């Protein structure tokens, strides 16, 4: 039973990291908290569901559609966030809170509160190794998130764009003085974020049930992992995601699934109180 928990914990954790990636990048570069991040993931899931159901696209084809839709949406969001005044972090939380409510109700209107699922039977099939069963869905999650993290890490450390992004994350003013266009960096961050969200959404819709109010939990998870990893640290996102996934799986076994949300909440509060700059990251000066 514990091995199953380990596996599901890592798979779940990989999924969480994917969700967190977009959030962490956007927050790191623009310092805007997007509390509607989870809603965007759910929305991407709904978009995928819609084209799957309405146009008969296969699951794989829904990914590009979802990414494209989120791309457009994120561009609009970037403009909205750029209109905010100081204090940016607080104002962005409040505004995106309003956005989350707007999106939730929008999705409620468009898709009703019924639980929706993108049926892709291949994902529930799996392999059995030494009495341990792994579904293709879980394998996809782990592989996809590792690939995404790997690519992101490559981008951030081996390309000029990545260096510019990292500079902006570390010190916006300094980066601007060094000639980096921080506004464009913000756009890039939202763009990459849209990519991550667009990938996570359809996955969410095929592995979890979609319902309009699912977003907030996802956002809190993304925030938790981001704070744990420390702003701007990419590899920490995978570690954080896995840890969170494992802790949750353990909690489900020990306490039952209804205590899951309380455990996540306590972890987030503990991180906020004791280490807002991240556990893995170094303390700033």
């Amino acid at each position: 039973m514990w091995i199953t928990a380990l596996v599901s914990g890592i798979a779940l954790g990989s999924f969480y990291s994917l969700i967190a990636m977009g959030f962490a990048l956007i927050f790191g570069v623009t310092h805007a908290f997007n509390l509607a991040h989870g809603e965007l993931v759910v929305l991407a899931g709904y978009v995928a569901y819609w084209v799957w159901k309405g146009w008969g696209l296969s699951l794989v084809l829904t990914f590009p559609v979802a990414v494209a839709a989120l791309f457009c949406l994120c561009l609009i969001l970037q403009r909205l966030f750029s209109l905010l005044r100081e204090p940016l972090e607080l104002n962005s939380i409040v505004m995106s809170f309003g956005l989350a409510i707007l999106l939730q109700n929008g999705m409620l209107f468009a898709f009703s509160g019924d639980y929706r699922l993108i049926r892709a039977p291949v994902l529930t099939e799996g392999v059995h190794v030494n009495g341990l069963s792994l579904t293709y869905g879980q394998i996809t999650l782990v592989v996809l998130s590792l690939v995404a993290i790997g690519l992101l890490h490559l981008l951030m450390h081996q390309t000029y764009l990545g260096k510019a992004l990292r500079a902006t994350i570390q010190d916006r003013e300094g980066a601007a003085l060094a000639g980096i266009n921080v506004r464009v960096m913000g756009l890039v961050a939202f763009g990459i974020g849209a990519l991550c969200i667009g990938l996570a959404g359809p996955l969410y819709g095929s592995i979890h049930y979609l319902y309009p109010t699912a977003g907030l939990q996802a956002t809190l998870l993304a925030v938790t992992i981001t704070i744990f990893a420390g702003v701007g640290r990419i590899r920490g996102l995978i570690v954080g995601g896995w840890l969170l996934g494992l802790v949750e799986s353990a909690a489900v076994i020990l306490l039952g699934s209804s205590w899951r949300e309380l455990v996540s909440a306590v972890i987030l509060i503990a991180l906020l109180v004791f280490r807002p700059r991240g556990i893995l990251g170094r303390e700033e000066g």
Partner: protein
Amino acid sequence: MERAAPPKLDLRGPDRAIPVLLLLGLVLLPFLAGSSGYVLQVFTHALLLATLALAWNILGASGSVSLGHAAFFGVGAYGSGLLSLKPGLSPWFTIPVGGLFAAVLAVVMGLFCRRLRGAYFALATLAFVEIPRVVTDNWEGLTRGSLGLVGLPGLPALTLGPWRVEIGSSAGASYYLVLSYAVVVVFLVALLWESNLGLALQAAREEETAAKAVGIHVDRYRFLSLLLSACLTGISGAIYVHLTRYTVPGLVYSLHFSAVPMIFAMCGGRFTILGPALAALVLYPVDQFLFHPLLPAGHEFLYGLLLILVVLFMPGGFWGALRRSP
């Protein structure tokens, strides 16, 4: 730049007309509404939301944004509900006690979140709701879990000499009770901002470092404003539960009761006294009478949209902007 005066209940000029007229209208409402019980119900709920918005703003105007006030609402609701159900105590007693339970929860929150500011405090409050919610949901022995509490006693009767009013069974009487409570809350809030505590909270909100440098114990006063805000929210929660006579965890701890009062406070005016209440009394009926019939699912998008607009274009709220103009 915001208006000079501290939030004052001293209403001069056009400021005076609107709240007074509104109060008059509210007092006369049961007679104006005639036979429509629905109108009365909507405005009763609007008044309750007004008290929630006012209570939220005690913390809001001190500079802290809470996204999880439903925690206090729910604890007050369940506290009062349970005490009135099992030991069978009178709601006159259990409603204030509900407020007390909420205050105790605020003490716990305050102890952990004392040093948190701004966005991080907001996040903590958002997560914090889960704690009482999940506990309530799972402690089935005490709270019947997700089945909720049903058959709660309604608002109790009021006996003044030979005159007895069964408030619980009369929509009109319930309405006047909630209206009176709302007026009391308005005066409490006004009193707070006139006092030195209010001055300290405003100073701490404006410039925390300078406030400390002139002798204000910022952490302690913020804590006090949290307690006050939580207590009043809990009392409102208790009243709510005796109005509807039933409750489930998913309802009283829902995002609705965290978000809507906060949105009313921000739309009305974070730096005013009446703003939150006015927003509640205008927006909630508009939502219920206009948008709800049009969009039975998703009509609350209005609140989300208004919040976005207010944050971007009108941070002082509508009433705040109105009071600024000469």
